[in-house]
């Protein structure tokens, strides 16, 4: 009796959240799919069936091809840069140095800041002006005698997007460091000791024991960083506004939908983004929930 009542209450307790998620996540995704299959272009909704035309057009659209290229460049640099820097910082901090807490806090603080703030500050740091109007990092390099480092940053022709990875790494590498640091702390010291007793050098211990044991952390970090980079939006807007040279799918989606009222195409871009993120995240969720169930 009691049990049955509790069961009903338990369902009633989670029902509002489940209904909200069903509508806001799954309902809206289906709705977006429907919009993406329509001719809707203009202020008023128009659900006239259009088949896959919006998708096909996107794949013949030079701007979307630039977006894919930009996303690929950005993702490769951002993910590998954050992983390497995060691993390096975690390894350094794992040596038991004095002041570890201070360094950790400094490396992690950008995580607390919005991409807009980061973007506005880096816009001025990466000011491309040369000569007497030089400022930002170029000016700093020049003052330090490192003139060869001065460059056009995100205004570099064709490769501007690569420089957006710098503020993105600035923002996220501390997080990766924290993930690696907790991974390192979970490796029992006896394991390293045993290898040393067997005559392994520090470098061998690191390569043969520590790095392989950090693989799950690397996987999580790659998934997290990868899905962030696929949907990058705020940071680019704040650094550079909406320039075609630095275009990515999220910006194209925004402009074509809310500036150009081409809702059909905007929805198609959104759904393509969803598919690429899902391809990354669903196997990962499956894997982590499964291994959780096994424990």
């Amino acid at each position, binding site marked *: 009796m009691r049990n049955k009542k509790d069961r009903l209450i338990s369902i009633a307790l989670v029902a509002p959240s489940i209904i909200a998620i069903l509508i806001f996540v799954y309902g809206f995704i289906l709705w977006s799919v429907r919009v993406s299959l329509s001719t809707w272009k203009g202020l008023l909704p128009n659900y006239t069936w259009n088949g896959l035309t919006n998708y096909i057009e996107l794949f013949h659209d030079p701007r979307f091809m630039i977006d894919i290229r930009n996303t690929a460049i950005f993702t490769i640099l951002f993910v590998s840069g954050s992983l390497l820097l995060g691993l390096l910082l975690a390894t350094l901090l794992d040596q038991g140095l004095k002041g570890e807490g201070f360094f950790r806090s400094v490396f992690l603080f950008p995580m607390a800041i919005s991409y807009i703030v980061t973007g506005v500050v880096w816009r001025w740091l990466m000011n491309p002006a040369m000569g007497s109007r030089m400022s930002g990092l170029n000016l700093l390099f020049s003052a330090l005698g490192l003139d060869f480092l001065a460059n056009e940053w995100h205004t570099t022709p064709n490769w501007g997007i690569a420089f957006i990875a710098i503020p993105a790494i600035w923002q996220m590498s501390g997080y990766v460091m924290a993930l690696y640091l907790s991974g390192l702390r979970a490796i029992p010291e006896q394991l390293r000791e045993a290898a040393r007793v067997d005559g392994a050098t520090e470098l061998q211990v690191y390569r043969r024991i520590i790095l392989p044991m950090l693989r799950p952390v690397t996987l999580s970090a790659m998934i*997290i960083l990868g899905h962030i980079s696929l949907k990058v939006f705020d940071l680019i807007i704040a650094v550079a506004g909406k320039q075609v040279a630095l275009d990515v799918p999220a910006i194209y*989606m925004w402009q074509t939908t809310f500036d150009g009222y081409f809702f059909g195409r905007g929805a198609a871009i959104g759904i393509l983004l969803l598919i690429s993120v899902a391809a990354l995240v669903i196997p990962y969720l499956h894997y982590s929930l499964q291994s959780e169930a096994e424990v």
Partner: protein
Amino acid sequence: MTTTTRTPKRLYLLYIPLIFMTIFYLIPLYLMLVTGFKSFEEINLQTMWNLPQTLALDNFNEAFTALTPYLWNSLRMVIPAALISSMLGSINGYVLAKWKFKGADIIFPLILFGMFIPYQSILIPLVEFMRKINLYGGIPGLMLTHIVYGIPITTLTFRNYYATIPTELVEAAKIDGAGILSVYRHILLPNSLPSFVVVLIWQFTSAWNDFLFAVALTRPDNWPVTVGLNNMAGSQIISWNVQMAGSFLAAVPTLLVYIFLGRYFLRGLMSGALKG
């Protein structure tokens, strides 16, 4: 912690890269602060790295005047949103951890997936929906959006936390005749304070820092500070120095949270290691 045979001298060398990286992370903060404290006469892009000659508040004052309405909008939107989605997460986490009903194992991943979706894939329906229910343009609509899309991460955090509370405790209370609600009130809730802090901080930070939902759902009067700041940065009228000072002001609330509650902030990051 480490018991290596490394000599202390070699260990000291490790400070070189650490200090170098510290400079890299602090450069933007340095620039925001020195610019903010300069007087207008001192402002010049070519001397942006110099320390201020005198401490002035010109830039902060001007930025604050420009951003006050947006800061206020952010604050009154973010606090209720963080509170409500944390409450919902706590209840969901409790039920999913301790009262697994049929289908709970399917529902949990379905909820979880919600925190990974690129919001571009739901943005058009979201805006249309908010228009239909007359919440478009204002703060309540944005608040509702943050509450709903916050549910996955808050549920995950609380579920993981409640899973560590011994089920025997719950079972014993049940045998004593306690129902689902009184178990929550007397056993789980009193132990939840640390988790609430973690989740509240996390929700506060992500809603405060959000830009996409805000720019899609609010009209200029109701813009939160991220949209206000971005708009200020894009205008030709407001100069770079005021933008820098404004950036700092927009970052202050979350920075304060980070400085004073950093331990919990880190725990939030780790507990939601699934979340980006």
